[in-house]
């Protein structure tokens, strides 16, 4: 655990140097990567540790974005709006978890998939509060320059990613993480062994919601205009899952590595194959998952093992 923590400190310190490049493009990419990292690490709590394939990331993200935006619309300072978004996502995850986590496997996946759609329709119809389909404008933060603004949101995402990682590391090395591993491997056996499975699963689900909620709010402030199809996009859920599978499910650095790898692929493919970029990206993901089912992290272990006689 200590080793992982030190590697993470080093990693985040390195990423923190990115603004030195001074290029707006890299700043945008870096902020996006950190945001993807938060989504992927969050999914790891419920999908990787507890083994429940959640598609609720988009729901938490959109909920956070709209909570942050509406709170700021009513004059709440940005920082408080972000925290509020996290708290609401946390509470929502608790209620949703109590209802949905009774289902297992595919049934849970489908139920969690629908949540974002329901929220999107709700937001669409509550025109007075959310602006409905017209979207919602956020106040542009009063900062000296566009450059400083970009840096501010980059560091905000970095901080959020670091906090999410710390939470993940602490969870994995605690009784909660151990219980989640038991549930992931055999839920009924875990139950017979004295694991309060409902409590543990709901806790994992709450952890998978809270940071995504904050990320949504930060994103909303960063782009200062949100609309329902943008923030409740099911692709947020899919991407989070793909990134974790790409990096290595249930591992500590898998989600971050997956996020970086996925974003690089996305950018490269998008730049080079403008017409068919989603197709090419999809193909690459299929190949990666087929040939590296345990993610990119397993590559190093595999190569390492081959050296032994």
């Amino acid at each position, binding site marked *: 655990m200590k080793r992982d923590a030190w590697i993470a400190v080093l990693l985040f310190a390195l990423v923190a140097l990115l603004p030195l490049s001074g290029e707006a493009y890299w700043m945008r990419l870096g902020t996006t990567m950190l945001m993807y990292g938060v989504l992927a690490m969050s999914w790891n709590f419920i999908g990787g540790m507890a083994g429940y394939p959640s598609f609720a990331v988009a729901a938490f993200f959109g909920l956070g974005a709209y909570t942050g935006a509406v709170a700021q619309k009513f004059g709440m300072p940005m920082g408080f709006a972000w925290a509020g978004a996290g708290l609401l996502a946390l509470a929502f995850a608790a209620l949703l978890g109590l209802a949905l986590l009774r289902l297992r496997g595919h049934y849970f996946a489908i139920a969690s998939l629908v949540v974002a759609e329901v929220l999107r329709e709700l937001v669409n119809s509550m025109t007075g509060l959310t602006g409905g389909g017209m979207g919602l404008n956020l106040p542009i933060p009063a900062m000296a320059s566009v450059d400083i603004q970009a840096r501010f949101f980059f560091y905000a995402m970095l901080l959020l990613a670091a906090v999410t990682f710390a939470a993940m590391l602490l969870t994995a090395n605690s009784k909660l993480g151990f219980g989640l591993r038991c549930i992931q491997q055999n839920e009924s056996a875990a139950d*017979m062994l004295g694991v309060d499975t409902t409590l543990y699963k709901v806790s994992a689900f709450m952890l998978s919601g809270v940071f995504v909620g904050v990320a949504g709010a930060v994103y909303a402030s960063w782009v200062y205009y949100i609309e329902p199809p943008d923030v409740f996009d099911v692709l947020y859920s899919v991407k989070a899952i793909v990134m974790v599978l790409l990096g290595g499910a249930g591992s500590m650095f898998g989600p971050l590595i997956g996020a970086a790898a996925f974003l690089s692929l996305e950018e490269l493919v998008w730049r080079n194959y403008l017409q068919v970029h989603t197709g090419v990206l999809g193909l690459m993901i299929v190949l990666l998952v087929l040939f590296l089912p345990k993610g990119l992290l397993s590559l190093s272990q595999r190569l390492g093992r081959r050296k032994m006689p």
Partner: protein
Amino acid sequence: MSALLELSGVTRRFGGLRAVSDVTLSVAQGEVLGLIGPNGAGKTTLVNVITGVHPASAGRVRFAGEDITRLRPYLAARRGIARTFQIVQPFPGMTVLENVAAAAMFAGGVSYGKRARDEAMQHLRFVGLAEVAERSAAALTLAMRKRLEFAKGLAMRPKLLLLDEVNAGLNAAEVDQALALVRAIAARGVTVLIIEHLMKVVLSLCSRIAVLHHGELIAVGAPQTIIEDPQVIQAYLGKRYAKSQAGVHG
């Protein structure tokens, strides 16, 4: 001797089927009670009723003086009811030690970390699995997995241990080892309810035997009286055999 476990009028239905029907039975503190019966008699269902996996449709289950009829399995486990599974259920992706540590931690109330590992190691030594402690649970032989089940059960610090066919699939030498283990566990003061098909095991181990047939309790008593009970013979070997036996003796 006071009763540790008391079942009164316990019935469990699955749709139209009464898997367990109006069973009244008490297990005394410290005894080793054998539960036998033909396949499909409802033995495993009865264990599931006691542990809360399939709560009783009617009747009461009392454990250590308290009503546990509707208690969820994890709470029953924490109160001191441990079970082994007929089909062994380890956590395959964990080491043998972690499997036992999980039991110690979640049901046994041992704190997370080194203390749970230490305690787990003790139980592994007791069942003779200390050398494979760091191996993956999926890599164990069937006999070893059964012993792992014992270790997990013990780590839960049980008052009552429910053993569901711990000897199924074992060879004669392995059965003897398992038998010795059950004796050692009982000697620690743990009350044992054992489901078993091997009469040799039941007769040598149990102070009393209960017989289930079609979900009903048809006989309870000392081993010797049970094997001579005509109803039991009938359940196992059919009416005609029971009659011919009665003719020979009478």
